[in-house]
């Protein structure tokens, strides 16, 4: 994956955030902040891609017959190279401090004052446990490593070979993380459901009528709630476990960019909460 290809993905997110802000989304403040985060993530992801390319060139120069960047099986979590990204953590904290609301900015200041060993511990422990035990981590302790490491996790996931799977998995096949978002993409004349990993953003296919939290299959207990004003965003609830999965329906709006449209749909999260449903995994900004 080249740095340009990585950059295109983040450019799409930034453009979508700008469009939704221009349309006076109720999440404009969140989207404005996300735009800054996405710009940082884009730069970081491109640096990671470039560094990996340099490493590959050095490796291949000595042995021309060796395969070049062949996808390998294995867990995303085995691949953390903190030396590559840690030098950027201070500038990330600085970005948050300058652009986030007061409480988040204060948390960034607090982390910036910690010694680098604490940063290493924060990032390493998140990398090892993200997407699996997030309910036990505070909002602040989750936001910083998640926003910072996501481009790296996503890049590593993009270079992994996906193992053949014969069953519907409720966790990511590459890292074991739980999904935070669903996406319906065109399949035939309908929409096939994909889950997006909350840690590495890998997408894997998932049955339409199945609860990703508890495995409920009874169609009567799996209602879908859709607002007339935003028909491409679905709240797929489960009346058995009382969790819901937000799903972006790309068959209704092909211009949607799932992670961004998910942030903009915060009113639906509030509605779901009012009706007794919890989200399995929150998105980057806890919406």
């Amino acid at each position: 994956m080249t740095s340009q290809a990585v950059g295109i993905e983040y450019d799409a997110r930034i453009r979508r955030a700008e469009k939704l802000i221009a349309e006076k989304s109720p999440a404009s403040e969140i989207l404005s902040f996300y735009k800054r985060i996405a710009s940082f993530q884009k730069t970081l992801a491109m640096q990671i891609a470039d560094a990996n390319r340099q490493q590959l060139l050095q490796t291949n120069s000595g042995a021309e017959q060796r395969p070049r960047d062949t996808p390998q099986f294995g867990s995303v979590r085995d691949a953390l190279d903190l030396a590559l990204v840690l030098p950027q953590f201070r500038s990330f904290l600085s970005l948050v401090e300058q652009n986030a609301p007061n409480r988040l900015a204060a948390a960034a200041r607090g982390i910036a004052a910690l010694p680098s060993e604490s940063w290493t511990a924060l990032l390493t422990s998140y990398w090892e446990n993200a997407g699996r035990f997030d309910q036990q981590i505070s909002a602040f302790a989750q936001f910083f490593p998640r926003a910072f490491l996501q481009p790296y996790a996503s890049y590593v996931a993009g270079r992994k070979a996906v193992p053949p799977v014969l069953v519907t998995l409720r966790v990511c096949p590459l890292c074991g993380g739980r999904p935070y978002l669903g996406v319906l993409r065109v399949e035939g004349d309908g929409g096939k459901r994909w889950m997006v990993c909350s840690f590495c953003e890998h997408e894997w296919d998932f049955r339409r009528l199945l609860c990703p939290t508890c495995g409920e299959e009874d169609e009567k207990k799996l209602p879908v709630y859709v607002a007339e004003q935003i028909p491409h965003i679905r709240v797929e609830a489960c009346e058995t476990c009382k969790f819901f999965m937000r799903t972006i329906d790309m068959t209704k709006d092909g211009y949607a960019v799932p992670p961004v449209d998910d942030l903009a749909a915060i009113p639906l999260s509030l509605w779901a909460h009012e009706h007794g449903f919890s989200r399995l995994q929150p998105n980057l900004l806890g919406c």
Partner: protein
Amino acid sequence: MQTTRRDFFKFATLGGAAAAVFGFDLRPAYAQLRVLKIARANETRSTCPYCAVGCGTIIYTIGDRAKNVTPQVVHVEGDPDHPTNRGTLCPKGSSLAQDILNDRRLLKPQVRRPGGTQWEDISWEDALSEIAHKIKKTRDDSFIEKDAKGITVNRTEAISWIGGCTDTNEFNFLVVKAMRALGVVHLENQARV
């Protein structure tokens, strides 16, 4: 880090509103929430009834399950998880919603008597009873115990059965059991579901 115990519980329990813990202003989101028109839909898996291919479908039904509200089918689409059609439907299958929501759809049994020109309404009970009597009479009248060579065959050639494409494997199993017990030999189904 200034994470308080209160912050932790806000995140863990509110889920959707954890952004407020960060200090984001959620008042615009709450304002939009009050004007959203949110409808509940149920998705139900089914099988297209038209041909022997047996394509999978998903039927969308709108309704909040209140006792005074009749669920309304609003959309039918191909089931993307179905191995036969993977989300596709032929033009006839795509019009399934019009088959369900149709003033001319029959919702009760009818009978046209021998020599008659009109269809008459009949209750389910009478229809089933009449069919049972006719089967019994036809079988008794046409039953062949031994063929021309004297071999025991115990069959009737006056009754035949053809199954529909939405019949499940289990239903067809019972059909074969029942028909073979009667001695029916002209028996066909479309056991694909």
